[in-house]
């Protein structure tokens, strides 16, 4: 080993590296702090809901029976939409939701893994057989949006999508038992 002595000691290099690591550490901490801040103040989380449901008997359940799917406005004004993601379609095919009102979307799958996103919004979740996926959100913009299945679920995956209509508050007209359906156009 050719031994050399020079006045840049090895510790000076280590010093610059530590300075650099500290500097960038502050910047990376900024990315984490905005996550923690919005989590604390605006309740922003990834959608999580460890609620187990047996996929094999899902179609026998009350909550996810065919008649109970779609959007329902409860007496106390809470808006809940229940949607089934099954091999190669969503039930119901079109979901109407109010604008600027807290909405809870509940998804379940009786067969394989699916996943949903609503274009242009932050609604996104995997739909794993065995669990009820739940997303709490508020739709900021009205319009006809697309809700595709974004997780490979079989050969019909490309044809599996549904529509979401974000209706202004005035056009949300629940029927007798609070159900809101899409406007046919």
């Amino acid at each position: 080993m050719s031994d050399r002595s020079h006045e840049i000691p090895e510790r000076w290099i280590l010093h610059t590296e530590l300075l650099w690591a500290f500097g960038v550490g502050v910047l990376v901490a900024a990315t984490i702090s905005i996550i923690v801040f919005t989590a604390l103040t605006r309740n922003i989380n990834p959608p999580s809901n460890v609620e187990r449901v047996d996929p094999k008997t899902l179609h026998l359940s009350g909550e996810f029976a065919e008649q109970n799917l779609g959007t329902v406005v409860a007496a106390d004004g809470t808006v809940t939409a229940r949607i089934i993601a099954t091999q190669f379609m969503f039930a119901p095919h079109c979901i109407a939701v109010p604008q600027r009102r807290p909405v809870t979307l509940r998804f379940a799958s009786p067969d394989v893994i699916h996943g949903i996103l609503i274009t242009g919004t932050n609604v996104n979740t995997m739909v794993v057989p065995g669990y009820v996926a739940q997303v709490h959100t508020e739709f900021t913009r009205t319009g006809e949006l697309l809700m595709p299945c974004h997780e490979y679920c079989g050969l019909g995956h490309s044809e599996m999508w549904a529509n979401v209509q974000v209706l202004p508050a005035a056009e949300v007209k629940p029927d007798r038992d609070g159900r809101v359906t899409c406007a046919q156009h």
Partner: protein
Amino acid sequence: MPADQPRAADNPFEEPDDIDEAALTAVLRTVPLGAAVLAGGAVALLVLAYLLIYLWIFLPRGVVG
């Protein structure tokens, strides 16, 4: 195919490159400045882009939780 005897290329330790020490020491006086500015700028740009996307694209799309 080359024979199996060890050749200079195989032995990295006795591998003095043709950099002379004086030039290296002179260069080392200013070296990490350029890298620090380049990398620092890149990371700052990255974090800025992250914050802009967070505030101007993510939050306006509505809360999620």
